[in-house]
């Protein structure tokens, strides 16, 4: 790995961590698509900043983009509160309009210069190492590292200082209001910090990766834990891991780094979706199956109790007919009941054990 590779990966890890910190709250507050909206809506702001500064300039691009982000949030809220347009539709009106205006400006007036529409979508983190921070003639090393380091620091401070407030406002807005800090203020603070982070990450990784890194690692963590602090840690970890493995994938395929990082966030999410012991699909299916078998074992002992002494009713082969179970399911239900010590096999028949009888009494009394 060369130095410039390290710088690219380092930038990626910084962006991923900064985004994941905020993403956790976006996902928990069910407003993940605001990340999508803001990341697209800042484009015209960046273009106007570019135009005002006669070229790429960090500060003016930053101010323009932050202004555009705030306009987007305000416009969405205005539409939603006018009650003419529903929640998702309001977002779906505002950000495409702003993004379309931005691309119109880019393709009309800046088509041959530094800005181009593809970079808007997937950035150019590949060149992170060639973009130096120069102050008063002194070169201070790669600029993206500084910018994203500052973003990460800002977000760490924000989440660290307001952790309790964010937590209460997210899980119990009523309590937050009762305790005297306004959930609305927390909402706007979060949106502002998010806009700034998006702007910082935008030039490096484009609109789409910002969305991927804000939402996907946080959602991955949400499937893995029920504790907020653990969730934040896991989200940062998933994001950083995506940045590293995504870079490796991109180099192997000679493809876009941002795209590969976004793809890797999806891979980790897919793994958590399937295999999370807590909320994964496999664990869920297994839990359902166990529940089904437990219920089946209960119906089995009740059935046996109802027909005690009747040889024909207690035959294993008879069960599938009587309780309308498949032969396979009947076998498994019998095994489950056996394991729980509720029944015993006696030749091809089943009889209740003492604990089976007491289980029947409990079931009947409830």
């Amino acid at each position, binding site marked *: 790995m060369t130095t410039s590779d390290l710088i690219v990966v380092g930038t990626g890890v910084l962006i991923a961590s900064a985004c994941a910190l905020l993403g956790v709250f976006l996902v928990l507050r069910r407003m993940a698509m605001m990340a999508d909206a803001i990341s697209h809506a800042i484009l015209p702001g960046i273009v106007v900043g570019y135009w005002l500064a006669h070229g790429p300039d960090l500060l003016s691009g930053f101010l323009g983009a932050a202004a555009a982000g705030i306009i987007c949030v305000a416009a969405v809220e205005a539409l939603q509160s006018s009650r003419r347009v529903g929640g*998702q539709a309001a977002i*779906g*009106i505002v950000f*495409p309009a702003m993004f*379309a205006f931005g*691309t119109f400006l880019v393709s009309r007036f800046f088509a041959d210069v530094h800005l181009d529409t593809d970079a808007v979508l997937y950035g150019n983190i590949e060149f992170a190492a060639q973009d130096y921070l120069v102050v008063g003639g002194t070169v201070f090393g790669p600029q993206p590292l500084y910018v994203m380091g500052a973003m990460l620091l800002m977000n760490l401070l924000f989440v660290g200082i307001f952790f309790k407030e964010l937590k209460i406002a997210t899980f119990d807005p009523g309590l937050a209001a009762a305790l005297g800090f306004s959930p609305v203020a927390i909402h706007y603070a979060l949106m502002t910090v998010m806009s700034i982070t998006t702007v910082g990450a935008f030039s490096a990784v484009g609109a789409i990766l910002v969305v991927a890194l*804000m*939402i996907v690692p946080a959602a991955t963590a*949400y499937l893995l834990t029920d504790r907020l602090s653990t969730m934040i840690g896991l989200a940062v970890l998933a994001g950083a891991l995506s940045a590293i493995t995504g870079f490796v994938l991109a180099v192997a395929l000679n493809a876009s780094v941002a795209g590969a990082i976004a793809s890797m*966030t999806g891979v980790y999410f897919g793994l958590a979706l399937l295999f999370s012991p807590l909320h994964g699909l496999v664990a869920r299916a297994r839990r359902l199956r166990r529940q089904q078998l437990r219920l089946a074992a209960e119906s089995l002992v009740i059935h046996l109790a109802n027909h005690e002494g009747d040889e024909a009713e207690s035959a294993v082969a008879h069960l599938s007919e009587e309780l309308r179970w498949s032969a396979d399911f009947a076998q498994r239900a019998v095994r489950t009941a056996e394991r729980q010590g509720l029944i015993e096999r006696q030749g091809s028949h089943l009889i209740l054990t003492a604990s089976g009888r007491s289980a029947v009494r409990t079931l009947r009394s409830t």
Partner: protein
Amino acid sequence: MIFSDLLFDYTLRNVALGSALLGIVSGVLGSFAVLRKQGLLGDALSHAALPGICLAFLLTGTRAILVLLLGAAITGWIGALLLIRIVRDTRIDEDAALGIVLSTFFGFGIVLLTFISKRNDANQAGLDRYLFGQAAALREENVVTMAILGAVALCVVFLFYKEFKLATFDPEFAASLGFATGRLNVLLTSLIVIAVVIGLQTVGVVLMAAMLVGPAVAARQWTDRLGVMLLLSSFFGATAGVAGAMVSVTQARLPTGPMVILSLTLIVVVSILFAPRHGLIVDRVRRWRLAGARS
């Protein structure tokens, strides 16, 4: 002059027909999406179509439009099913699920797109026009393909109109009457995938979301009846589509997608402000008069 060009100029005629078709189909299907409060569904599905286009090209090596659109439809549909599954079976809400499908599928699409373009394959040129759309590249057979797809989608809406209407406005009642609301949901989502596929060439994956939301939101301001809303919505969609495409084709260096969306935004803003019953300005005037009458 423009009118005779529309009729006789090959490119302009295809562009106008193609974008009008797109507007009609997405106007109708977008209305259902918006009324069901799924305004951003199209955003996720259109982004999910990108890897499909690239995979279809990588696997077959052709740029035949039907093959690429089939690929787009397949990954778009996979994205849709994944979305429904995540929302149904996990505690992740719809907003996050949309963002997940959108960004990861699109990210993967970008990986494929850059992978293809760096292989120096002479044939690859032009896949990236699916990002922002390029109506000028529409040819007659593309328009025919779009027309067939659109006709199929509209026929299905016509056949299931009552079911869709009920499932949209009162899903619980629909379920209690024995309609398979889950299956209706999948059917409607699949139709939206078709609308997205139709829009890929003209508007592109990035801005397709607005094509499904805008006409419906504008139409909603003018009427409270579903049938009227569908007609108005497709009219607005077609108008924006044709206007945007015309500007983009006749002016140099303007991608079609953004121009269509800007025309559409104009229609939406005018509708929200000036529509006779729900318009904000009319509303303001009415309140002002009411206040005047009271005092």
